[in-house]
């Protein structure tokens, strides 16, 4: 992604800032300005908690350009507690340990590097919920 595009989505990538619809009160992520549930304008910022569960997952063995150094890596559809679903990489877990329904939480991680002259892109990834892990132990 270009520098401007990365900068423009910084609140989303660093803090999962979406929106909440004033009319139907649904949480929305990523932000889209028109509520997908009721088609009313929705521009009020709302930060999601970053907690959710794994809806589905896979491992990327054959990565697109820019992600070669990280492959293979696990990715998932994460159903956030507030309702929206997000597509993201998983981290701090081996691919064969991932399960559907597993509680996960958002962390900030390096997504990729764009060479010597380029920027380093950081984004959200999801890891198993630490508190739950501690309780289980």
């Amino acid at each position: 992604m270009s520098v401007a595009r990365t900068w423009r989505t910084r609140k989303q990538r660093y803090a999962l800032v979406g929106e909440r619809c004033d009319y139907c009160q649904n949480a929305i992520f990523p932000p889209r300005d028109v509520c997908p549930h009721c088609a009313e304008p929705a521009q009020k910022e709302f930060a999601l908690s970053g907690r959710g569960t794994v809806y589905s997952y896979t491992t990327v063995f054959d990565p697109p350009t820019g992600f070669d150094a990280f492959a293979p890596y696990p990715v998932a559809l994460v159903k956030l507690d507030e309702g929206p679903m997000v597509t993201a990489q998983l981290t701090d877990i081996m691919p064969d340990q991932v399960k559907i329904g597993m509680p996960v939480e958002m962390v900030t991680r390096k997504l990729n590097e764009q060479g010597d002259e380029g920027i380093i892109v950081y984004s959200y990834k999801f890891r198993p919920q630490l508190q739950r892990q501690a309780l289980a132990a």
Partner: protein
Amino acid sequence: MRPVYIAGIGQTPVGEQWERSLRHIAHDAIIPAMRDAQIERADALYVGNMLSGELVGQEHLGALVADFVGLRGIEAYKVEAACGSGAAALRTGYMAVAGGLHDVVIVAGVEKMTDTVGRETTAALAMAADQEYEAAEGVSFVALNALLMRRYMYEYDIPHGAFGYFAVNAHHNAAGNPNAMFPNSITLESYRKATMIADPINLLDSSPICDGAAALVLVSEDYARSVGNGRRPVRIAGSAVATDSLAIHDRRDPLWLDAAFISSRKAYQQAGVSIDDIDLFELHDAFTIMAALSLEANGFAERGRGVRLAEEGEITIEGRVPIATMGGLKARGHPVGATGVYQVLEATLQLQGLAGPNQVENASIAMTQNIGGSGATILTHILVGE
């Protein structure tokens, strides 16, 4: 609206065409289609293509191809709807003839995918998905389909091996198609052992990266009567398109292809046919999971039962719902922006009794469905042999 007929067809073999460039393979489909329809000019040319800009560094395909095939001067432009580009070009041509603006239109689908290395092509294909919130996270197009397949297996308690029937059927049918990329038979055993790409999707769940072009000549009813190449007239009786969110994560139910449901219902209604009337269905089996989801959203199987239809042998040429009758995306090949045109061309061959060893007996109504992205644009066409 005026009735629209398919008066001529042309195609190149699907595969790695190292010696032919994008414009050459377009030529190799369009000229045979024009000869087949016995025309020397057309009112317009619509080129379905997804990735020429990214993989060949060439846009502006309408003028380029029109000039290259000797049609300099006519109306021409590219139509893009990701992997649904081919059927989107067809729909554009259909609207032009049905609406009375043109009498003779050429629709060509063309894609050149083998001039780049694999990772570049993989990154380019991900442009069919949401670039900012799917692809940007390093999630490939295959991985998006793997997310759907994993969830499907979980919700309906279906083992991966059951999807193998789709791949086996596609390869079996490709053996009877001289233009198919993979005319080799495979077994359920080789399916189970295939290389993993994005689990649970393996190599034999996936359609290949390849080059190819296919072309159709569409004409009005009066024109069809005046020329005619002596074959059974094939009419486009239904044409519909519907859209959904680009990103899977924005769908209310990721395992339901809403745009397939909507566009197929519109097409059935327009054509005045019910699902039981359809003799064959060229569906968009880019991945085996897409074949299952398509059978369900279009009404051929209940939810969670699409794979069973394959297991029970209903999808073969002799079955109740023959699919991928010339190999499908899996084994004929999936030159993305050309696929939608190949599907309609193959359905036309079936309706004219020209499908050789793959002929579906007494075929008179065919359905084709071309999908852009992971279900965001879905185009359905119903063809009737008269």
